[in-house]
């Protein structure tokens, strides 16, 4: 039993094989290169989604009428799995990074948007009465009220969404690209190298853990902490 755990069976690579595979992939630079490629795609796709979803979410959260008009479209698009966009992603963006970025963008955009809308819509009206009383201009209320009030909600959404996009990058890399941890998995499967598959899975898990750790650091920021301290 212990022996097979070490040396593996037909359906499951053993620890020995995995360690050797890890050594091999780490030494020839493949693991580092692919990890960087995956992180690059997640970062770009995620940032694009955040840059678009946060301002849009603040607008929709504060302008009920526009929100009511657009909400059916958002709620219609949201449940469609990002992977369902693969055919169109390839048709529109061809081969390379772009379709993968598009899939990550789709996966990050909706959770980010919906959390931001919720954060913006649930700001206590009293703060706006204070702002009106002190004659804040539109920009002053955005800068001094709306943005800081939404920041804790946005930071939490960033953390959840980054997890989602890191999950989706693997699927996105199974199409149209020749690098990344997702590509490593699909390529290893084709070569029946299950030990490589496990190495890729472990790497994904460890990096997911690190990303989440860095995001929890964000939650400790001064600009966010007031939210936790309120009952």
């Amino acid at each position, binding site marked *: 039993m212990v022996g097979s755990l070490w040396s593996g069976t037909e359906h499951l690579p053993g620890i020995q094989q995995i360690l050797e595979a890890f050594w091999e992939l780490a030494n020839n630079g493949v693991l580092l290169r692919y990890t960087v490629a995956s992180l690059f795609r997640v970062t770009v796709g995620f940032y694009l989604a955040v840059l678009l979803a946060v301002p849009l979410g603040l607008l929709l959260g*504060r302008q009920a009428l526009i929100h009511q008009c657009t909400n059916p479209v958002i709620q219609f698009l949201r449940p469609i799995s990002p992977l369902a966009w693969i055919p169109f992603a390839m048709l529109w963006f061809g081969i390379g990074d772009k379709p993968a970025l598009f899939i990550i963008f789709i996966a990050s955009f909706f959770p980010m948007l919906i959390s931001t809308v919720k954060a913006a819509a649930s700001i206590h009206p009293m*703060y706006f009465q204070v702002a009106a009383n*002190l004659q804040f201009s539109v920009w002053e209320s955005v800068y001094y009220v709306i943005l800081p009030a939404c920041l804790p909600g946005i930071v939490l959404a960033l953390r959840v969404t980054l997890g989602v996009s890191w999950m989706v990058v693997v699927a996105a890399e199974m199409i149209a690209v020749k690098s990344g941890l997702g590509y490593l998995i699909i390529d290893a499967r084709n070569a029946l190298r299950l030990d490589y598959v496990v190495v890729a899975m472990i790497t994904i898990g460890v990096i997911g853990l690190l990303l989440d750790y860095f995001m929890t650091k964000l939650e400790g920021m001064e600009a966010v902490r*007031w939210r936790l301290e309120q009952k």
Partner: protein
Amino acid sequence: MSKSKIKIDRVTVEYGNNVKRSWFGLRKTQPSPCEVGGRVVLKDISLEIQHGEFVSILGHSGCGKSTLLKIIAGFSTPSTGKVWIDGEEVVGPRPDHVFVFQEGALFPWLTIGENVAMALRSVKDARERQSKAQEYLALVALEGVENYYPYMLSGGMKQRAEIARALAAQPDILLMDEPFSGLDHLTRLHLREEMLYLHIMLKDTTILFVTHDIDEALQLSNRLIILSEPPAQVKCVRSIKVPHPRNLASEDLSDLRANIYHHLGVHTAI
């Protein structure tokens, strides 16, 4: 007779009509409990308030005291009737008519100093703004807390800070909506004393003070306005001529207190 500072002319509020939608982001004023139920909250309220007066508005909870104050502040509009301040009709919030909320109106994402500085945005120099904010905090006996966030302070200190922010706006009229009702008894007594000191110091500021604490009203005000149960009307107005310091146990004031309890339909001897 001098021209009155605030003139409230036959103000009536029915629920559903007093929601203001003009200001960016201000979708809806918070409906207070008394506005719920599609009924008349305030009926035909007419009042005149003189420059520099300290007027308390008393009434049962949910009788529309706060609604009246919010109308004067310009946060909501009455269904019928009008409010004039200095001969001008109230059409919206103004920086010289400052509203002090019951609690939690400091921006929790800003420090105490930054909160007060929000009312000093016209001062362009940052250092000057900061020192002015400290002056106003000192006025309400808050020193050395300007770098703290509101959550780090006690309820009483937060309320002091909010009053400091209101004063920093150099108000002509202070509209205070049960400003001490969330605080413990001792803190309220302290703040009551400070409120009186502020009123004496700021002779030119007219103060409207909504409360359901009769002693608080007796000790602070020049005039009491008692509202009836909803639909609220002005039940009676009482002037208090007793000079400060006022002893609540004195004959005049205890008679007045008994009289107010009577008007509010409360039996004191049970």
